[in-house]
């Protein structure tokens, strides 16, 4: 039911882990629904230089987390922010329809991490 690309990211997920001195951290989903994604980002200037993730969830959740790290690294924050769940699914050559709703949270996790980065850098620049 999963595309080869999903299976590739599921079996060899890229960028698993945490970033100790992350510039932003995002977490979405909840254990009740069976999917939690946590994303760490490192930003240099305006460019995302590193992303790491940890995910509790099904194959689709793991693969979307993995692929969005690749999609985000090298993009500016403003560019990364515009990535949609739909684009994540397309990057994976599609997801089964039941998975579109519940397990495709990666774009939201990235958004949350960027929001966190903004808040922190606002604070930094304000201080």
């Amino acid at each position, binding site marked *: 039911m*999963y595309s080869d690309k999903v299976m590739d990211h*599921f*079996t060899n*997920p890229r960028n*698993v882990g945490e970033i100790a001195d992350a510039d932003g951290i995002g*977490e979405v989903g909840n*254990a*009740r*629904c*069976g*999917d*939690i*994604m*946590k994303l760490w980002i490192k930003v240099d200037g305006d460019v995302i230089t590193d992303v790491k993730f*940890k*995910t*509790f*969830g*099904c*194959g*689709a*959740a*793991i693969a979307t987390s993995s692929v969005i790290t690749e999609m985000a690294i090298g993009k500016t924050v403003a560019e990364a922010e515009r990535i949609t769940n739909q684009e994540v699914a397309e990057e994976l050559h599609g997801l089964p329809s*039941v*998975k579109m709703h*519940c*397990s495709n949270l990666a774009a939201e996790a990235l958004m949350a991490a960027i929001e966190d980065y903004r808040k922190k850098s606002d604070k930094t620049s304000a201080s």
Partner: protein
Amino acid sequence: MDHAATTALRPEVLDSMLPYFGSEFGNASSVYGWGRRARQALDSARDTVSGLLGASSDEIIFTSGGSEGANLAIKGVAWANQNRGKHIITSAIEHHAVLDSVLWLEKQGFEITILPVDAEGQVAPAQVAEALRPDTILVSIMHANNEVGTIQPISEIGAIVREHGAFFHTDAVQTAGVLGMSVQELNVDLLSLSAHKFYGPKGVGALYLRKGVRLNPLIHGGAQEKRRRAGTENVAGIVGLAKALELAQEEREEENARLIALRDRLIEGLMRIPSTKVNGSLVQRLPNNVNVCFEFIEGESMLLNLDLRGVAASSGSACTSGSLDPSHVLLAMGLTHEIAHGSLRLTLGRDNTEADVDYVLQEVPMIVERLRAMSPLYQG
């Protein structure tokens, strides 16, 4: 290791069916010729099944499977007996074929009581007794649960229900090929089973209906099954069902001993993984059922990894069903959502050996470790 989902047809069973796909293709309702021989095959299958259940042959209705059997039992008894009352009792861990039938009847004006279960997934007979009302017409409690393997005290519950004067149905889909099936000892008025769970064909089942229990058909039409289930009979399927049930019942004691040894080896091995919990009773348990929760990981990703290693399994994970909630059975047993999401069901069968068990015991710990390393919930 997903034998609770379905089983492969036994070659002996296929052999018993093939004549009815070939020269013996008659319609059992035709009066003469080929029809007569199809009728004889049906009669003989019916005798076999009724014999194994300790019933008489006109108490057996052939169906298209366990779901139809449960729907026919529940809706059929409800419709035919609504003048006596409109209250129905069932349990929170039933298969959806039972639960959804009962919930649909609720929308049609019936009143429903859904009994809770204890932490091991058992229904207490005392709670059935308490829930019975003067207008209770039907109680439906499954013989053993398909997810956690817990066996219910059917005989005891049956005695209470009979004493009260209501009818009692048990969904024996998971037990028909595994446990003793005397409807007298079980104290049931209706019992449904499905051939593909005991190495018979898919799409055929049977409903035991005690003489004297009034039932409306679910499928109206021809006079088949003594007007209780219309439709040209699936002769080959019915012959296969009878053959498969006969073989399973003949071999069950020996096979159960073998499966219990494998099951316990598997449970013991899996329990060595930290933060792991067995679901269901360890005593009143199907010989082939293993169900565990690994904390901090989600079930579907577990299944997918096992599948990549050639092991078929099942999970109460919501992600395998497309709904948001995990197994209603595990939740009814008091598990939290996040733990219920991490359940793994392995169900053993005729083709499983000790080597299979050992292979699983070698793979699962590595998969669990890998997934936990990826989990934001795991503090390592």
